[in-house]
């Protein structure tokens, strides 16, 4: 596939922010780089025509997570150091590099963006086609993502909702509070 200028710029921005989040010595700068990374990724989701995921990434990754990180920072001690970048250890680089290699090895098996028919089993697959053809008739909602989330895979979504609820309960337990306040 060919990249447009915007896509290429976004990818460079996201990679830069990811490196910044990993390498910057100052934790506050790291958190900011991570927020920028999330914002960039959310725009990439929109370009890839996954606005539902983009909205989630922007709201959770760039919004709530940043606020929670900042609050955690405000409640802890931030060591002052003169150096800008973290000291890079060879072991860490080797480990992260191996992980990235494993992840990259899966990329060639993904279908090309925008590919149709047999070249893209994700789109042409029976399940996807069934959802696209029957979602409105069976669930009366236009957004197929919502149809899958709330109707076809409703049981999974109940599980996810309970996970969020449990996270709240776990936080209360760990902090020995009885109410959210």
């Amino acid at each position, binding site marked *: 596939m060919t990249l447009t200028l915007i896509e290429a710029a976004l990818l460079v921005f996201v990679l830069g922010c990811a490196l910044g989040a990993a390498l910057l010595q100052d934790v506050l700068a790291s958190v900011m780089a991570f927020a920028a990374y999330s914002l960039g990724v959310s725009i990439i989701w929109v370009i890839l025509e996954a606005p539902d995921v983009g909205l*989630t990434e922007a709201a959770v990754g760039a919004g709530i997570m940043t*606020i929670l990180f900042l609050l955690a920072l*405000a409640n802890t001690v931030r060591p002052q150091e003169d150096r800008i970048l973290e000291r890079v250890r060879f072991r860490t680089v080797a480990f992260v590099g191996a992980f990235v290699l494993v992840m990259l090895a899966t990329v060639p098996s993904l279908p090309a963006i925008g590919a149709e028919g047999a070249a893209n089993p994700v789109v042409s697959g029976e399940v996807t086609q069934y959802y696209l053809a029957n979602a409105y008739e069976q*669930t009366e909602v236009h957004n197929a993502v919502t*149809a899958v989330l709330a109707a076809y895979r409703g049981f999974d979504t*109940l599980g996810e909702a309970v996970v969020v609820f449990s996270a709240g309960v776990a936080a209360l337990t760990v902090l020995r*509070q009885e109410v959210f306040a």
Partner: protein
Amino acid sequence: MSGEDRTGLYVESTIIMTTVRVVAPFVLTFALFVMFHGANSPGGGFQGGVIAGSVIMMLAFAYGIDSAREWVDVRVVTALASGGVLLFAAIGLGTILLGGNFLEYHLYERFLSHATAYGIELVELGIGGIVASVAIGLFFLLAAGYGHAVDTPEAEE
């Protein structure tokens, strides 16, 4: 680590307060739009809930976390979280009582028309309630911090 340091978190700023006062209603409206209209446009309960929760965080940044904590009713936050789970589970289990499978919305058709659409909407609202209240709750919990929470458990009543 708690007491004096935490009060330093809040800086009273006319610019931030005015901006938040203007923007907050629109953000809340957008959150409700994303939640209610998620069936026909991008979005849904998860996204709308997070945006709704961020309204409280905006208010907390503008007017101080402690004022926001006093303003938000704890019972409402807790009720939203557990009520959301209960609502979702009740809608899902209700269809089993009617003789169908879990979340088989169209069985409610005998009580009201377009039951599937309304059922999905209610489920999204339940999810939104859970996500918004847990986000708000985590925000307040983290802001209070561990030491603060253990020192004054009865002050939060």
